[in-house]
């Protein structure tokens, strides 16, 4: 036992640290699904519908089966008994089409899986797909959600000719009185176009079935290994404890891998049938066609206000383009928009009506922000439209309507309880950083020279840290296990499943501080259901706020045990534990964590009522969501000749509560802003009237590149969340949510002298040019 101690006093939480996971990612030593090689592994390729809507008259697989190297070909009838691709969301009266893993007699969207070929290599499998003869009877398709629910539209599902999957109504306060008392009402149709999430790594699945054990292992690029295991086991009728799901490295998801897909069960089915491992790797074209899309809103907003700018009421009619099926959360996503529709404003009188529209397109589902960017875009556009109507400054009208600092926790008209906030602070900071008042003067000068300069603000709030279990389809808690090995090295196992969020670093920072060890003494494991206790996953900006909190509480439990062992070893009644040592302050004697860990495993002697070993598991149920907020400010200039938009400055001030690692937070904001810019300026999934996806490749789907991105200035205010002991809120989606309305507001401001009031995204140069031409005419 040491009598002198080396104490570690430098705290890592709050420190900008390089990510622990980066060396393997940067040096190419990480393992993705496609890196997995197994003896005897077969390769699958999927035949997909070339039509948006068609009846399948016949499928002839004879030539494909006869092709040398083909092991099997399965069509819809072969897989009919596999359970449907699951929808985890429930809404009253929701129509749920049976989503077979392979189409049976009808295809509903381009890319709809029709058959799967399994062969000895991927080249043979691909060639054999072309040998399958399918006779289709093409049907009229509909891809526009407003047309789909309008008169005369072809039915996506013949059993529901109106194409309405659900109607959802939510109301708070007294909307009719608010609108009756209004001195001004502004209305606008606002769209949030369909987007293709475009993770750098496409989806991929490897499945292996041990015929002796009757045990199935699935490696999948997913955000939710445990939920996927439960649901795929159900689909396959396999006992859950004999299904293991592993997520190796996941190269991005943005919500698109917060799902259970047909291919995951299909590969399990193939492996069980053939008793050989099988791999399927999604091509980029398949990723564009068949992995969920995001957004897809047509919103009709109405805002009632007093002449002084006080917002009295908000109405929203929301048409959600659902696609042909419900994936895991499809119908739930627009309900999040409704929850968020009042934004940061003190307006209790809200009414929303959602129509969920079936279309002949791939389903929409969660994509970075998932419902909240659409809502924020809407309300932040409406506030600017109201300000323009009342000739008020956009900053002033926001400051006037913000929920006050002394009103938290604040019960919204949509049933949420905002945890904490200081909404004026980031707005003021953003305005200071961008020099708002001088900018307005600069703008006056620019306008006098005929230049189209715009200044745009957005002040956003978001629902993060999903979330309390009663409000989450499959449970909203998270789990953590922390164990200290006999040597004193620490292993953390988190039920959340990070895939780019840097939690191997942030969770290690939290752990290192609590246990007083170095960051390299901690390893964070995740994404293997055979190793890690059940968990929920990473999505909805929940990783640190819920998963990190579970780690924190597991550490508190562990520290109790450490102190018991410390007291026993020091033969003391009362010891303290900090900086990696237990100290008896009466004697000055101390014992290190490694010594305690060793003693707990050697177990020569045990503290009374204490088990050997040094492991604690904690399942944390959050009492509420957390609600980050912030303000983005953007300066743009529009080229009069071409309609090109130049972003002159971009300032993002986010308040995500306490910050564990500023470097990671900055990275999250940057990435989020880039995807917000993508929506505002370039990206759109375009289907033609036959249901063909025009933007099925990166030749036509414009994801932003580094060269297209302006300098992003990031700053923060810090308002800790009272919901969790770390005081963190979540930041993964913030950039995306704050960005698009700020950019659109800026460009509308630039064109306001031409009478432009609103522009739908993406704001392509041609769209802008047409607006300018229209104003000239």
């Amino acid at each position, binding site marked *: 036992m040491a009598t002198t101690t080396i104490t570690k006093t430098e705290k890592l939480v709050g420190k900008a640290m390089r990510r622990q996971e980066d060396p393997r990612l940067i040096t190419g030593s990480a393992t993705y699904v496609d890196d997995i090689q197994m003896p005897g592994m077969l390769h699958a*390729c999927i035949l997909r519908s070339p039509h948006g809507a068609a009846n399948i008259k016949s499928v002839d697989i004879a030539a494909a089966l006869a092709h040398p190297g083909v092991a099997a070909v399965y069509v819809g009838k072969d897989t009919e008994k596999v359970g449907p691709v699951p929808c985890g969301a429930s809404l009253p009266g929701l129509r749920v089409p049976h989503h077979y893993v392979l189409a049976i007699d009808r295809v509903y969207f381009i890319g709809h899986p029709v058959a799967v070929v399994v062969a000895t290599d*991927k*080249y043979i499998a*691909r*060639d054999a797909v*072309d040998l399958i003869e399918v006779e289709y009877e093409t049907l009229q398709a509909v891809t526009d959600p407003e047309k789909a629910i309008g008169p005369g539209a072809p039915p996506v599902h013949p059993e529901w000719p109106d194409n309405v999957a659900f109607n959802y109504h939510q109301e708070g306060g007294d909307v009719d009185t608010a609108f009756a008392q209004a001195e001004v009402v502004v209305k606008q149709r606002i769209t949030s176009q369909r987007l293709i999430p475009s993770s750098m790594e496409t989806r991929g699945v490897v499945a292996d079935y041990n015929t002796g054990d009757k045990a199935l292992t699935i490696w999948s690029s997913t955000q939710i290994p445990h939920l996927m295991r439960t649901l795929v086991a159900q689909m396959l009728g396999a006992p859950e404890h004999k299904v293991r799901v592993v997520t190796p490295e996941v190269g991005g998801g943005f919500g698109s891998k917060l799902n259970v897909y047909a291919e995951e069960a299909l590969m399990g089915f193939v492996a069980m049938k053939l008793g050989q491992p099988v791999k399927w790797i999604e*091509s*980029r*074209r398949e990723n564009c066609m068949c992995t969920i899309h995001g957004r897809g809103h047509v919103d009709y907003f109405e805002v009632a206000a007093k002449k002084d700018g006080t917002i009295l009421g908000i109405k929203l009619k929301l048409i959600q383009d659902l696609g042909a099926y419900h994936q895991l959360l499809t119908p739930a996503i627009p309900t999040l928009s409704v929850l968020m529709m009042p934004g940061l404003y003190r307006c209790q009188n809200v009414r929303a009506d959602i129509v969920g529209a079936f279309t002949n397109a791939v389903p929409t589902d969660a994509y970075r922000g998932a419902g909240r960017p659409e809502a924020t875009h809407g309300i932040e556009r409406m506030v600017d439209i109201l300000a323009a109507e009342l000739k008020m400054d956009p900053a002033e009208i926001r400051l006037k309507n913000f929920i006050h600092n002394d009103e938290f926790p604040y019960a919204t008209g949509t049933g949420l309880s905002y945890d904490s906030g200081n909404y004026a602070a980031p707005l003021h900071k953003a305005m200071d950083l961008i020099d708002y008042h001088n900018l307005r003067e600069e703008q006056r000068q620019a306008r006098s020279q005929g230049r189209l300069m715009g200044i745009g603000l957005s002040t956003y709030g978001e629902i993060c840290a999903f979330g309390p279990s009663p409000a989450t389809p499959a449970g909203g808690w998270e789990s953590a296990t922390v164990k200290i090995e006999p040597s004193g090295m620490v292993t953390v196992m988190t039920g959340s499943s990070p895939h780019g969020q840097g939690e191997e670093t942030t969770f290690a920072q939290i752990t290192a501080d609590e246990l007083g060890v170095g960051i390299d003494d901690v390893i964070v494991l995740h994404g293997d259901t055979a190793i890690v206790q059940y968990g929920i996953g990473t999505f909805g900006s929940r990783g640190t706020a819920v998963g990190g909190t579970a780690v924190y509480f597991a550490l508190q439990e562990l520290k109790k045990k450490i102190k018991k062992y410390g007291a026993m070893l020091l033969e003391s009644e009362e010891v303290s534990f900090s900086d990696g040592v237990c100290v008896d302050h009466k004697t000055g004697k101390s014992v290190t964590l490694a010594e305690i860990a060793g003693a707990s495993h050697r177990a020569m002697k045990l503290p009374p009522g204490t088990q050997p070993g040094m492991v604690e598991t904690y399942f944390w149920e959050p009492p509420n969501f957390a609600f980050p907020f912030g303000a983005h400010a953007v300066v743009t200039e529009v080229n009069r*000749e*071409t309609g090109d938009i130049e972003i002159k400055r971009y300032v993002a001030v986010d308040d995500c509560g306490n910050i564990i690692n500023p470097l990671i937070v900055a990275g999250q904001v940057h990435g989020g802003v880039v995807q917000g810019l993508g929506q505002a*300026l*370039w990206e*759109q999934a*375009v289907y033609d009237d036959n249901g063909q996806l*025009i*933007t099925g*490749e*990166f*030749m*036509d*789907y*414009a*994801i932003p590149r580094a060269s*297209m991105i302006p300098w992003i200035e990031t700053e923060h205010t810090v308002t800790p969340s009272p919901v969790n002991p770390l005081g963190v809120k979540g930041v993964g989606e913030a950039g995306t949510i704050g960005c698009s309305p700020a950019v659109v507001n800026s460009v509308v401001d630039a064109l306001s002298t031409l009478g432009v009031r609103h522009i739908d995204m993406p704001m*392509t140069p*041609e769209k802008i*040019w*047409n607006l300018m031409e229209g104003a000239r005419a």
Partner: protein
Amino acid sequence: MISQQFEYSAPATLQEALDLLANEGAKPLAGGMSLIPMMKLRLAAPEQLIDIGRLRELNYIRREGEQMHIGAGTTHWDVESSPIVRAHCPLLSETVSNIGDIQVRNRGTIGGSAAHADPSADYPAAFCALEAQFKLVKKGGERVVGASDFFVDMLTTALESGEIIAEVIVPVEQRGTGVSYQKCVQPASGFAIVGVAVRVSSEFVRIGVTGLGAKAYRATNAEEIYTSTHDAAKAAAVVADGADSNSDIHASASYRKHLARIYTQRALKEAASRMG
């Protein structure tokens, strides 16, 4: 994204390559920046690929008198970074630096780009403005074709079966000539929605336009107006006249024509300012 099966040969000499290319179903592969993606999408399915990208015989840049000779297998990056090209044919240097990204420019070749004849490719605008000549070779034959005859239609050139480009010949730019390439970038692909290449001196003006129609063209009517008026706006106003403009989700026909006029004006002004 897996192509159909094909045979692959990497001949050691041009002669050997031409012998192989005489086979039915053989297709030359140079940098593969267009052909390989088309094969992966199964839009192209050649039975035999003859890799001419490794032939040193096709990889050179040299000046001979008043002409520059560039081997068809010269990569975009080699053209972009060549001091000789920069000194004697700055329009090519500027144009090529606009192609794709550095990875594409490291693989793609001048001959491959010309032979593919993508209507939105950058190079053809410069070829038209430079009145480039293409030395075409096949087994037992050789001929030279000018740019205006070489580009026939969308993805279609004067190349016959078994024939490849061996060399691109462009004039050495005389002192006092200003050049410019101005491009409106399609945000997804990086190709040109329109691209305009201009050479202007006290003696002449040449305007090459890509992206607008099915093939790149020399805008002779605009050249004539500029020659007589030296007015960039007036010349640019007619640059798209008579053109059968492309239209897609990135730019409608009328907007493309508008852009062609704007970018022509910009290119003329920039080139004139560089006349020195």
